[in-house]
């Protein structure tokens, strides 16, 4: 197969990346907010999550060419994951704020589910971008989800350390599991890039990132956060905080690079040579007889 002109896409820049960076973190933080501990902590976590999601959506709004038509984004829920993301975000905002105002745990729980759905939509947005080979593998969805979960739990850990509330054991383990899940998803994603013959520039960039992400995004958070569980009381908080920040920054760095630097386009290619009228070919396959519907039969030498 001859391929050429696999250039870097320039349509989505840091503003689009900002939606994935802040939205992914905020969506999963919203999912974890009901577990934050005290009512005050849950409220602050919810507000922080909404602020992050809102910042991401603001980034997108700054990117679009006709910002005053932004509401048209809601017109295609049947097929567009961007529309679905917008709907999910809207519902999540309404539910989360209603949950806070009405002090309703049920609404907060439902909002949490929408937080996960929001991050899932982000993964599907990338997967539906068939023009960018490094975005479209199905393995990108679990990678986006696990990255968001790492970031959301990391923000919660860092915030609890700063508030001197103490990090619950389950949350530390959750962060550890999330970074491990991210490392696993990252390995599967990189294998998918090779399997799908993604542009060499994207694969090379991911390979260069790999040791840094593995060390800074997985090993350091894992050792720091799990170590904090068994460390003396004066060492544990800074260790957990450090690990959480590393997990957070690694996720943000990866998503920024994925959107803005590792997004080479499909390019152009010569395809497999065929013979015979294309509709005769497809209808022959469906009806089991050549030359269907008056179309010329497939010529001798057809290389199907």
């Amino acid at each position, binding site marked *: *197969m*001859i391929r*050429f*002109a696999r*250039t870097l*896409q320039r*349509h*989505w820049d840091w503003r689009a990346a900002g939606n994935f960076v802040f939205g992914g973190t905020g969506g999963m933080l919203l999912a974890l907010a009901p577990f934050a501990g005290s009512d005050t902590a849950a409220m602050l976590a919810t507000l922080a999550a909404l602020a992050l999601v809102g910042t991401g959506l603001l980034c*997108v709004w700054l*990117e*679009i*060419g*006709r*910002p005053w*038509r*932004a509401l*048209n*984004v*809601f*017109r*295609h829920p049947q*097929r*567009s*994951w*961007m*529309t679905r993301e*917008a709907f999910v975000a809207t519902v999540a905002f309404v539910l989360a704020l209603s949950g806070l105002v009405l002090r309703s745990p049920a609404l907060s729980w439902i909002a949490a589910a929408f937080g996960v759905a929001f991050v899932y939509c982000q993964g599907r*947005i990338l997967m*539906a*971008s*068939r*023009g*960018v080979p490094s*975005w479209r593998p199905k393995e990108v969805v679990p990678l986006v989800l696990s990255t968001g979960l790492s970031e959301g739990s990391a923000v919660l850990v860092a915030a609890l350390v700063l508030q001197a509330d103490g990090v619950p054991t389950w949350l530390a383990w959750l962060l550890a599991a999330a970074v491990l899940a991210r490392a696993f998803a990252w390995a599967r994603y990189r294998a998918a890039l090779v399997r799908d013959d993604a542009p060499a520039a994207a694969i090379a960039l991911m390979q260069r990132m790999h040791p840094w992400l593995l060390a800074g995004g997985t090993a350091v958070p894992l050792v720091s956060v799990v170590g904090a569980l068994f460390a003396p009381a004066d060492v544990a908080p800074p260790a957990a905080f450090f690990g959480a920040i590393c997990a957070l920054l690694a996720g943000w760095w990866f998503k920024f690079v994925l959107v803005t630097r590792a*997004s080479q*386009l*499909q*390019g*152009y*290619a*010569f*395809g*497999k*040579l*065929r*013979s*015979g*009228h*294309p*509709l*005769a070919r497809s209808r022959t396959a469906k009806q089991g007889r050549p030359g269907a*519907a*008056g*179309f*010329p039969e497939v*010529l001798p030498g057809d*290389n199907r």
Partner: protein
Amino acid sequence: MTRYAMVADLRRCVGCQTCTAACKLTNSTPPGVQWRKVLDVEMGEYPNAERVFVPVGCQHCSDPPCLDVCPSTATRKRDDGIVTIDYDICIGCAYCAVACPYQARYKVEKPAFAYGKSTPQEDAGFDEARIGVAQKCNFCVDRIDDGKAKGLTPGVDPDASPACVNSCIANALSFGDIEDPDSNVSQLLAENQWFQMHEELGTDPGFYYLWDKEKL
């Protein structure tokens, strides 16, 4: 049913870019925007190197990825297979541009002209509605609709055919109804070897390339 398709004979194309120029003139596209362009491709290695010219643009796919992702429904597919953009609805998110595997879509953020200040020709063709939104080849859909209203046949009568097809000096570009077994494009595809670009992506493009060398 009708499905309009383009056939590009790579054995005929000489890379003169007349189609590119005709498209720019007809559609008044700004600098850097080429709804129709011709790639200059070098194949093989010395001493068996060869240049091939490949016209590209929107492939008017049967299953267009741009249509699926468009959040505003600005991108639509007509019953005759032509994929269009409603500039009055498009929000300019460029999701379609990253979803298109053919690099066919453009977005222009502000008016731009070839020599800084606009020429009378550029003034005549300038369309404010195209600023900040996605744009691409539409197979000169206005010419097709206008021609059909006059009883003309797209792909046969120049007044009902895309400008790039009319302008081609080598008769490398052909346009017509692929659902009609007697159309020019149906005959070309029946009598020649051809390929579709990126067929593995399942888009079923309405753009066929005639080629007869199994070098791929």
